[in-house]
């Protein structure tokens, strides 16, 4: 099951890195959009809301799923390690430990991706709420 460790290394970790890049890219894009939006241009509050919340769900998905993907990588790594342990007996515990550390790396990266994503999501959500309230105030809706 050596392919499992390669799968964890390149597949899972690569996927997490991609998610992290995407999450940060979307966050930056949204923040720039919120800076530049002209609230007065919208006649309907729902249109404004639709426009503002456009890609936030992606950040939320990345933030909530990254730990699970990391966990999946960990589980695969531990599977591979146990398999190695079973096949080779107890010959080389060094390799076992390396396999386990690789497995834990996946969880760590997953958390590293998730934590900023959740922070970004909450900050952006608050900003959206603020912009909508600002629009309501400007249009004196109750």
């Amino acid at each position, binding site marked *: 099951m050596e392919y499992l460790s390669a799968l964890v290394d390149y597949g899972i970790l690569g996927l997490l890195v991609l998610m992290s890049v995407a999450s940060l*890219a979307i*966050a930056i894009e949204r923040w720039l959009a919120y800076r*530049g939006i002209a609230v007065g*241009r919208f006649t309907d509050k729902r249109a404004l809301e639709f426009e503002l919340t456009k890609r936030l769900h992606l950040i939320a998905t990345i933030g909530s799923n990254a730990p699970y993907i990391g966990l999946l990588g960990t589980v695969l790594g531990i599977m591979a390690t146990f398999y190695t342990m079973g096949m080779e007996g107890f010959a080389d515990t060094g390799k076992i430990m390396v396999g386990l550390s690789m497995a834990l790396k996946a969880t760590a990266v997953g958390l590293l991706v998730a934590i900023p994503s959740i922070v970004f999501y909450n900050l952006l959500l608050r900003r959206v709420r603020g912009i909508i309230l600002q629009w309501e105030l400007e249009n004196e809706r109750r």
Partner: protein
Amino acid sequence: MASQQKTLSMDFSGEAAVRAETPEGRSIPAGTIGIAASTILHALFFVALLILPAAGVHPVKTFHITFVDGGEAAGGNGSPASPPGPMLQASPAPARQHTPPQAAQRRKDIRHPAAPPAIARTFPEKIQAPQPAAETPTAATTDAPSLPPVPQTHAEEAFIAAKTDPVENVGLSTAAIPTGGAAYPEAAGPETAGSGNGVPFGGTAAASGSQTAGSGNGVSSGQGTAAGGSGVIETAFGEANAPRFIHRAMPVYPPLARRRGREGRVVLALLIDKTGKVRKIDVAEGAGFGLTEAAIAAVKRSTFAPARVHGKEVASRAVLPIRFRLE
């Protein structure tokens, strides 16, 4: 954004509003900026974390933890299948001088020796991570420094050397036996020789006899290697090449030492041949009050798997520290 125009009929002036009203009047859409900035930031992050340390610059300090195959810390009863547990290879022992309170009962600690005086070995310093509480620490204190070197060490050595000779003689005789029937005569041979001398080598001999079952060459070539001295590697228990315990007998704490509250550390150097049989036991560092003898007796009751270099069994001279601690 064009696709959104097709699928939804809503007020999309917002999109234009976003684009046109950006303060700096950029023509680059915010999405492109976002992707570019994100990619650049991640690339910088990876460079800082992975590439720069390789190049010698250390903006972020990372710990490199390597695990070494080592003796297990506690309570190993020497069950036949118990593997040497992995342990964190910490900085050399003399740096630590504390006694932990958490050794639950008397047990044997197998550790890498810091620098056994009789055997010159250096091994690279590995992790600096703090040791978990469950780990009994390396070679702390309680080497009874006031004890004089035990004079019977040399006599013991000579005694052991004399005892091993009959085993080697038996090895010569079994070499003549054809390989097919080597198992039983071989097992019987060393045993009778051992019991003939009144020496408790029986356990070791029986196990190594079954170990070399089917290969009468094992004993003779092993003996040849031990006698010749070529191909004998210097190692220490716990290293990757080192011999391993098949059955680890725990030493019996000498009643005299226990009564006197004596703790100590015994460092043995075991000459283990290619078949895993112990040929010679040297005492690199002895302790008094019968601790050395208890350690040697435990080694004799134990069985070993030989050292391996590139997968091939070799004879080895392996250092084995044994710590006696009371609780």
